[in-house]
């Protein structure tokens, strides 16, 4: 019954816009939505259209006609299933690594950092302030087989003596992990930060053991952050091609690499469009399944 108190109209009980307000809403929404409509929604249709085109037969590269040739999709899937497999394998691995690296970090910032919280958050996103491509190239140098990092790792037998890191799948996954780590840490932090520390103390009071509290109290409560973080990491990672291009070799290419080369090296728009479309469809399905499974509606 207390729902009638003023607090309620702040959240769920927004006023239904009427008359003059409706006009205000329209003025506020139209420019932004029009922009997204024309430059996000419409292009998806032109992409779908392009994906079923076939070469015009004129012999001029880049000239295609609309033939609704759905077989393009089968051709693309059979030809590039390895790329799809790698795209998802690498991005799932990188997402898992990001979660493993990012969770303790987010936990540290949320519960142990005190006044340094904001400062540490800035440090987490610090890589964003240097160029993405430059950072990735830096990793290529740092992880090169004759560099001191790899040599010392070999020296302490963390990795086998004969292992190549340069231009390997390992380097690609490491690069993706590094580049998308902030996307994992920020949502994790914001949902951990919302947890009342007294709940964790109560957990400690009832379970005693720190690990049990983490597993039974903290982690379940931070689920929205885990879901948001994994999605924000996985989605851009699966479409990325810069890491594969700069850190990998020609056997580590991902779907993004093919899309790029089909557009710019081989002028084959239909294949590129079909690839993009399938990539998006698979991601959407995975995301929906994942969100259902994780049981949260809180995406943004």
């Amino acid at each position, binding site marked *: 019954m207390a729902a009638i108190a*003023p607090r309620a*109209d*702040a959240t769920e009980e*927004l*006023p*239904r816009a009427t008359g003059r*307000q409706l006009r*205000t809403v329209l*003025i506020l*929404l139209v420019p*932004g*939505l029009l*922009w*997204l*409509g024309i*430059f*996000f929604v419409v*292009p998806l249709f*032109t*992409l779908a259209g*392009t994906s079923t085109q076939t070469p015009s037969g004129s012999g001029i590269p880049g000239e295609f006609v609309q033939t609704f040739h759905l077989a393009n999709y089968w051709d693309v899937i059979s030809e590039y299933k390895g790329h799809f497999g790698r795209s998802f394998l690498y991005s799932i691995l990188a997402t898992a690594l990001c979660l493993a*690296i990012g969770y303790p970090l987010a936990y*540290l910032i949320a519960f*142990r950092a005190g006044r340094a919280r*904001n*400062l540490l958050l*800035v*440090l987490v996103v*610090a*890589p964003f*302030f*240097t*160029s*993405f*491509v*430059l950072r990735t*190239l*830096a990793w290529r140098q*740092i992880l090169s087989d004759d560099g001191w990092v790899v040599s010392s790792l070999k020296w302490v037998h963390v990795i086998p003596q004969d292992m190549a890191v340069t231009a390997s799948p390992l380097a690609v996954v490491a690069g993706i992990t*590094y580049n998308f780590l902030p996307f994992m840490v920020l949502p994790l932090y914001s949902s951990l930060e919302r947890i009342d520390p007294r709940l964790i103390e109560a957990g400690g009071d009832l379970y005693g053991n720190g690990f049990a509290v983490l597993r039974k109290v903290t982690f379940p409560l931070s689920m929205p952050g885990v879901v948001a973080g994994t999605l*924000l990491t996985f*989605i*851009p990672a*699966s*479409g*990325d091609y*810069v890491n594969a291009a700069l850190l990998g070799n020609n056997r580590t290419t991902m*779907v*993004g690499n093919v*899309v*790029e080369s089909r*557009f710019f090296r081989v002028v084959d*728009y239909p294949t590129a*469009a079909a690839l*993009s479309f399938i990539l*998006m469809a698979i*991601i*959407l399905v995975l995301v929906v399944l994942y969100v259902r499974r994780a049981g949260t509606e809180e*995406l*943004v």
Partner: protein
Amino acid sequence: MSTGIKARRWLGRHALHIYGVLAFAYIFTPIAYVMVFSFNRPARSNLTWRGFTLENWTNPCNAPDVCNALGNSLKIGVASTVIATVLGTMVAFALARYRFRGRTTTNLLIFLPMATPEVVLAASLLTLFLNMRVQLGFTTIIIAHVMFSISFVVVAVKARIASLDPRLEQAAQDLYAGEFETFRRITLPLVAPGIAGAALLAFSLSFDDFIITNFVSGDVNTFPKFVYVSAGRGIPADAYVIGSAMFLLAMAIVLAAELFRWRRAKNL
């Protein structure tokens, strides 16, 4: 108590902090690398250490095109930030303040671009521009950057508006401020930090974007594109200087803001 147990206790208590130090070392490794190599003696490429010099820093535009690309990136960043911030803030106010038909659809339309991989956004925009025979260049880059920034602006600003206590605006109206005055004197100043944050985010997204820019830029060179393209034949040390300088500048701004906040908090 034996020293072994003591050491284990100490380790147990400080494990998380040790981890934190390692994690930040990891985060800063490539940044440090970039900064160190910005002082490398120039050659055709900047892969091996040849000796310390300040030459790159005193003359960062030495390499052809690098400053041109930087200038383009800044221009595009400012333009797309302004547009995306204005449009996104407007949408955020509509979503945070009113219930209307199509609200769910609007929310979905805002969410989808964030849930689409960049390469798909890039490919679809390029097919549109190709089909419409649009000349690729500054305009198409700005269009694309605004498109992917709007959603982030909406989310950031909407969160800020939602965290406002509705009673503040009610109190203003109670104190004889009309709707416009209330917006100007109460709502806008209180939402401003959120808008500023969103603008910063939009700028950094635009400035650092490579994938989409690469698809829709035509002949126009941007800083990330310059670095990517020259990766094959060797990146000039000047690029490292610019990368380091941008980093230092951004950190300086953020730290100054943080220091200001601390000082104010201490004056309480």
